[in-house]
């Protein structure tokens, strides 16, 4: 096996359309394991199946599972090396509580008593609206579902969201807007069948390396699919593309509207299919009318002839497969843009067939489950908060009064939870497995919210993060490999991950922590029995299977036994919507939808008036410039994102020597022309400033489009080696602003200036 730091995608195994992707066995062990334990990777949303190698009670390596449909044996650099974080010497092994201003070690009884005492007093003094939970995209179904029932059915708060709001909320929202319900239409296996790949705002070579390997193997195979890439940066995929549209970040809707207009003008529409399976065609055509290639070219800063060329590729595709990620989800007009990609596939009638599909990708490994179980500002089982029947189903499952479950409005999104904490109306905030002090926008504001005396902050994590440093109580948690559970990747593949080793010290799984909290708080159902009636991971999973039964994400036929020893299983089958029927029935759908430019929530009556009856909804949107466009003081556009070697805020990958060695510190990527104008050479230390903060780092001058500055968002302050000052995290610069429909923060459109430091 070649070095995956030098070549993250490994050796090519080219293959032709409609043939099997060849296997390739990837493995990295530090010594020979005594035994292998079934699992899957939790370092991106690809969810590659792997086995964990164990010796002397420690994890000593991993190997990819060749039988699995997701990865056929392959692993990316994060998967191969990231497990070493589990063995890191600075794992949290005992609970911490704040005494006289400092965090001190204590025992579980003392720590949990402090948490329960404060929760009880906040509930008694104010009520459930003063309690918030901010979770993650990295736990297991068993952890999430326990939290969802505890918070929504037990405590009765509406304030439960995850950091998945930052990574995957728009994926879910755009699917709800177009198809009436969340659920990934396509499957990774569509790559084997497609003749055209369409990438919109997805740097897949760095974010989902193994799926990029699959594409590369087609692109370098005998009948190469064509590739259209929309991205401001010269990514790996852009270099392989037939047409690359390097648009100004924040202008996705303009370019997509122009592509739709070209499809209509040239008659590249499957009109019969569109008439039979969608509503809204006329409105869409009217909305895109002004977006000629010239007009969109002006807005986006690209040559109109390239827009025409891209449209021709999409228009002549016979099997079109589209991929979307953060370049859309974290950008201006996130949901509106993601919906236009759905629209393109629908207009071409290319969904639900081999090679024809949409993958609204996820960021984090288990983000799909946050959405499904009701921890991402959704109701469990893709239920609709506006549907009284759905609320009653949950009440029956949990044996609570329907009014106990808040459904007076949409579940509160993360940015609003932090706003309530800022305002003082939330006074108890439990942060689970995530690091908002580095990952949320405008960090100066976030730090000042978390540091308030009147806010009681509980943090559950495996390491003492920048967020943990601001907590009142820190609870040490078990990581992947140290607990059993299930999770689902971005193409709906469910994997079982067995416990391979014991957690270090006194660390516990999140599921156990929530169960303990519910017991101590005395949460009961309406008959006075304990609310949470299950204990083991399998018992929780079976409760979740019941909760999901009959809903689009139906797990009722997926058991631990079925998952054990085999490979992953996709809920809903290989592809959704194979018959061109969509879950838009008002009694069944997850959401009645939104007006995309303002976020106005539609009611049941308004939704019924669309008369969708199982058809998909072509939702249009005009282009609206970002509220913070570049100007005289801040003339450049900030773009933030990832490197292939790190995940999130590097809590794990920063503790894997190969990964940390490959990308040890922050950098600032500049376009050639901007660098020349500013007198900056490659390697010069530069200062980037926005109205909210500054970042310093060495410049990398690249082939990026002019006017754009890129900074990776992984770097915080825990490994700063004594240097002070908040000038390393990209989110010092970002703006507090979110998409009106998906409520996903906008990380990729802020105005900045750059100078030599």
């Amino acid at each position, binding site marked *: 096996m070649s070095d995956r730091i030098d070549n993250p995608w490994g050796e090519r195994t080219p293959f032709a359309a409609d043939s099997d992707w060849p296997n390739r066995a990837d493995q990295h062990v530090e010594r020979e394991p005594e035994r292998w334990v079934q699992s899957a990777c939790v370092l991106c949303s690809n969810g590659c199946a792997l086995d964990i190698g164990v010796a002397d009670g420690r994890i000593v390596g991993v190997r990819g599972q060749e039988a699995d449909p997701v990865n056929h044996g392959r692993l990316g650099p994060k998967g191969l090396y990231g497990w070493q974080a589990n063995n890191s010497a600075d794992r949290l092994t005992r609970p911490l509580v704040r005494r006289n201003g400092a965090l001190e070690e204590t025992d579980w009884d003392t720590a949990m008593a402090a948490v329960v005492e404060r929760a009880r007093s906040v509930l008694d003094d104010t009520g459930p*609206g003063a309690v918030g939970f901010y979770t993650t995209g990295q736990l297991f179904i068993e952890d999430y579902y326990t939290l969802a029932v505890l918070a929504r059915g037990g405590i009765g708060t509406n304030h439960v969201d995850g950091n998945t709001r930052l990574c995957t909320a728009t994926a879910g929202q755009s699917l709800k807007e177009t198809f009436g319900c969340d659920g990934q239409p396509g499957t990774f296996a569509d790559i084997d069948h497609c003749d055209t790949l369409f990438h919109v705002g997805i740097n897949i070579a760095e974010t989902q390396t193994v799926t990029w390997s699959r594409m590369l193997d087609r692109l370098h195979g005998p009948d190469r699919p064509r590739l259209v890439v929309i991205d401001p940066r010269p990514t790996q995929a852009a270099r392989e593309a037939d047409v690359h549209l390097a648009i100004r970040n924040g202008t996705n809707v303009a370019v997509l509207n122009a592509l739709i207009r070209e499809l209509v003008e040239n008659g590249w529409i499957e009109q019969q299919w569109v008439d039979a399976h969608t509503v809204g065609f006329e409105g869409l055509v009217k909305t895109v009318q002004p977006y000629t290639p010239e007009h969109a070219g002006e807005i986006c800063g690209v040559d109109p002839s390239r827009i025409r060329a891209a449209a021709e590729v999409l228009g002549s595709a016979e099997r079109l497969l589209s991929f979307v990620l953060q370049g859309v989800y974290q950008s201006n007009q996130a949901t509106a843009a993601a919906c236009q990609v759905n629209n393109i596939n629908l207009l071409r009638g290319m969904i639900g067939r081999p090679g024809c599909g949409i993958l609204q990708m996820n960021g984090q490994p288990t983000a799909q489950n946050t959405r499904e179980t009701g921890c991402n500002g959704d109701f469990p089982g893709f239920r609709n908060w506006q549907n009284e029947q759905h609320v009653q189903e949950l009440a029956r499952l949990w044996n609570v009064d329907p009014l106990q479950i*808040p459904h007076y*409005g949409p579940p509160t999104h993360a940015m*609003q939870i932090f706003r309530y904490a*800022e*305002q*003082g109306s939330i006074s108890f905030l439990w942060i689970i497995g995530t690091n908002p002090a580095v990952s949320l926008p405008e960090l100066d504001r976030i730090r000042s919210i978390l540091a308030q005396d009147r806010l009681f902050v509980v943090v559950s994590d495996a390491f003492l993060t920048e967020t943990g440093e601001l907590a009142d109580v820190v609870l040490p948690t078990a990581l992947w490999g140290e607990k059993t559970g299930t999770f689902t990747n971005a193409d709906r593949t469910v994997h079982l991950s067995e416990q391979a080793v014991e957690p270090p010290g006194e660390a516990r799984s999140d599921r156990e922590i929530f169960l303990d909290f519910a017991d101590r708080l005395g949460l009961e159902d309406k008959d006075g029995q304990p609310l949470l009636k299950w204990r083991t991971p399998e018992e929780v999973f079976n409760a979740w299977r019941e909760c999901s039964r009959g809903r689009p994400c139906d797990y009722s036929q997926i058991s631990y036994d079925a998952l054990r020893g085999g490979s992953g299983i996709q809920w809903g089958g290989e592809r959704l919507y194979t018959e061109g029927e969509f879950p838009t029935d008002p009694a069944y759908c997850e959401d009645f939808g939104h007006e995309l430019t*303002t976020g*106005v*929530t539609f009611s049941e009556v308004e939704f019924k008036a669309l008369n969708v009856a199982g058809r998909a909804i072509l939702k249009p949107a005009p282009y609206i410039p970002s509220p913070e466009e570049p100007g005289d003081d801040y003339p450049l556009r900030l773009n933030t994102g990832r490197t292939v070697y790190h995940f999130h805020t590097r809590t794990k990958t920063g503790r894997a020597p190969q990964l940390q060695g490959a990308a040890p510190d922050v950098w600032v990527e500049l376009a050639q022309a901007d660098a020349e104008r500013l007198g900056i050479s490659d390697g010069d230390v530069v200062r980037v400033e926005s109205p909210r903060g500054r970042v310093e780092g060495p410049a990398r001058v690249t082939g990026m489009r002019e006017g754009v500055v890129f900074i990776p968002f992984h770097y915080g302050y825990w490994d700063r080696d004594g240097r002070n000052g908040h000038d390393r995290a990209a989110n010092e610069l970002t703006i507090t602003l979110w998409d009106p429909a998906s409520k996903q923060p906008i990380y990729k459109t802020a105005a900045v200036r750059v100078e030599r430091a």
Partner: protein
Amino acid sequence: MKLGPALKRLHESELDLAGDFRKIGERHAADHDVYHQSRTFSMQCERHAELLGPIADRYGSSVSEDDAPGLWDSVMEAVRRRSSAGLGRRPVSGVVLLRDLRELYLAAHETLIAWVIVRQGAMAVRDKELLELAKELQPETDLQMKWALTHIKVSSPQVLAS
């Protein structure tokens, strides 16, 4: 012919609503979604007024020129934004927001009614230009009103029970 005065009334209503959105948005700069969307709506209302001007002239009810924000407005804007930072940290900010959203909803509703009246009049006098304009702009006013209602629904439980 009373369409002239009705147009003048609508024009005034749009300008008032633009001012309400601007002032209330600035007062709630700590509620970032309210702040940014209110600014967008404020500009949308100003555009409506601008487009109505020539038609009102045509009906002999000339409307005063839209004043650009003067020095006093800029000073007040800065004051409102600065004080919103202090207000935003206090629980009472939720109560103030709810009150202001209610005001915006009612103001937008008033503008919407003014549109309905003008549109009916345009039908009666068969003014195609005005009808086209109403068809384009009235739904935007309708959305402004529904936006306020969406936020009222989300805000009230937290304000009233926390």
